[in-house]
């Protein structure tokens, strides 16, 4: 399938300086502290696909999302969207038409809705901004969007605080859809929703994707949701992509020891008595990440080489893995989830 690439991200990096102010460093001692939130991430998303990022809290998923929609400039690396480079603020400023085709659903629905605006105005804003519709048609469209996400057209009159957490998340989804984006970045879009509304929203997102050929970057910590919606999945660990592949491949034949650990930690809903193996060890601090493969502090297969050398991603049958054990062919077979 020769699909058109919508987004191409290459060696993307974002570091945050979290040092104490200069004066207190001088007085109390202590050097510079830098969080390597995203440290050399590369991937591509083709038109009509859903690429998902998974990984433990703090591994840099939201930061990748924010870099792509331009909320932060990257420290290094490039972002090419529909063939145009948007790697720095100046390039972005030159291509407002591209920017308008991306929308983001934020992880925190509270912080992203203006409390002083009525819901109708919040949702109408992207429509008015892109001049997609005028007059009464705007109102009708807002009502339609509200119904699509399972709210009622009359909710347009209300303010965000009058809604429950999950209802607010649906308002932010309606707003993101209002601007008719081609590319939607969804940061934990359904984690505030109960399962039946979640099913409604995920089904809606899939329908829209099929009918409008939308492309999604999807972020979630819920692996069952991810396996349901994604074409491809990327696993992040401490700012780096450690494995990425087609969804089925990743869930059926995970290679990276970290991916396997995540799959083992999935809660057991059937209460079959399957031992849920908690992920061993702590996530190291991204301020002083471990040397070599940053996963070596928790990895049962770590060797001297792992402690010294950063593994480069190898591609085998479209499955990409950055792990020395895989390269050296000393990784045991995956036992599978059912065990």
């Amino acid at each position: 399938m020769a699909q058109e690439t919508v987004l191409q991200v290459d060696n993307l990096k974002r570091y945050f300086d979290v040092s104490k102010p200069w004066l207190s460093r001088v007085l109390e001692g202590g050097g510079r502290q830098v969080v390597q939130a995203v440290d050399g991430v590369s991937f591509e998303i083709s038109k009509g696909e859903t690429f998902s990022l998974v990984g433990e809290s703090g591994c840099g998923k939201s930061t990748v999302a924010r870099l792509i929609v331009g909320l932060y400039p990257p420290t290094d690396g490039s972002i090419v969207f529909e063939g145009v480079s948007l790697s720095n603020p100046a390039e972005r400023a030159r291509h407002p038409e591209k920017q308008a085709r991306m929308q983001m659903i934020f992880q925190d629905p509270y912080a992203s809705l203006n409390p002083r605006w009525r819901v109708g105005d919040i949702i109408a804003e992207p429509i008015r901004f892109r001049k997609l519709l005028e007059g009464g048609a705007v109102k009708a469209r807002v009502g339609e969007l509200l119904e699509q996400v399972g709210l009622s057209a009359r909710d347009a009159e209300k303010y965000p605080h009058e809604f429950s957490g999950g209802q607010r998340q649906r308002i932010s989804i309606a707003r993101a859809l209002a601007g008719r984006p081609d590319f939607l970045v969804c940061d934990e879009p359904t984690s505030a929703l109960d399962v039946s509304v979640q099913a409604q929203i995920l089904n809606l997102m899939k329908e829209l994707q099929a009918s409008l050929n939308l492309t999604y970057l999807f972020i979630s910590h819920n692996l069952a949701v991810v396996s349901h919606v994604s074409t491809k999945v990327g696993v992040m660990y401490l700012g780096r992509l450690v494995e990425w592949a087609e969804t089925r491949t990743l869930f059926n034949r995970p290679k990276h020891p970290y991916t396997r650990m995540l799959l083992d930690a999935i809660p057991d809903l059937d209460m079959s008595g399957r031992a849920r193996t908690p992920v061993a060890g702590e996530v190291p601090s991204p301020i002083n990440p471990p040397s070599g493969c940053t996963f070596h502090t928790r990895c049962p297969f770590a060797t001297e080489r792992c402690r010294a050398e950063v593994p480069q991603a190898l591609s085998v049958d479209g499955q990409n893995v950055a792990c020395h054990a895989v390269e050296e062919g000393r990784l045991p077979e995956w036992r599978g989830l059912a065990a």
Partner: protein
Amino acid sequence: MTDRPNAPLLEVRSLRVEFETRRGPLVAIDDVSFSIAPGEVLGVVGESGAGKSLTGTAIIGLLEPPGRITAGEILLAGRRIDNLPYEAMRRIRGREVGAIFQDPLTSLNPLYRVSDQLIETIRTHLPMNEKEARARALQLLQEVGIPGAAERLDHYPHQFSGGMRQRVVIALALAAEPKLIIADEPTTALDVSIQAQIITLLKRLCREHGTAVMLITHDMGVIAETADRVAVMYAGRIAEIGPVRKVVQEPHHPYTVGLMGAIPNLGHDVAALTQIEGSMPRLNAIPPGCAFNPRCPKVFDRCRVDRPDPMPVGGSDVACWLYGEGR
């Protein structure tokens, strides 16, 4: 499942919460009753907007006008707390009842360092000096699994990721070792491994300190692992409440049955997830009879007329006319 031998720590009796509006009162919580024993975890699940957060907010006395309790009682260790003056309730909050809110940002002040916020909370409730409180703050951050806690302690909330902020809020709620913890979606922004860590922590508190937990979440996996009993809410009422195994594996109420079917599962590949058709009625348009009747696949005449109250069915309490003397 043992019967709960202990006297309940929390008792909610026929709670009713209304919002005053120009078009008359809206009933958001309608005749809700349940209790939680010391050391017990009660999971609360249900449709978005069903009233889960409001129930929690009512218990800790933080309902905001125009919302107010119009009927019922709330008892903590046998003492009524729903009618306490503001000051008295403020002292109970934090010390005896810890709350983890659905929205981590409202509990954290963006202008203060995380260390300052933790130390202040600890010192408000526990007799500790600055240095001891700081050590306790650090220990709490480690317990909730913040990597590099010592380096992170003095950072501001915006420098944390979404899931880390949520863990800071959990640390704040645990700071004074309260007897009851109301946790509203405490693990929704967290990945499974941190989730497991937080759940282990909550369970340890229950076991070792007899802490009771009201755990509001839509994550059935978390419920299945953590809760002793589950309450399923729909349109401001309890549809079904019972031991977790019963509710998850043998749900009785048609809404609970639908809810269980909507969970995506890793093993099964389906084109579309099962969804319960239609949506929950608005508060101003709750139909007469059973509130679920417009969406219920099993609806029959009586459902459109009489409102079912919870009654015992196979170890659970179920509010549905399909059971008991209903048919």
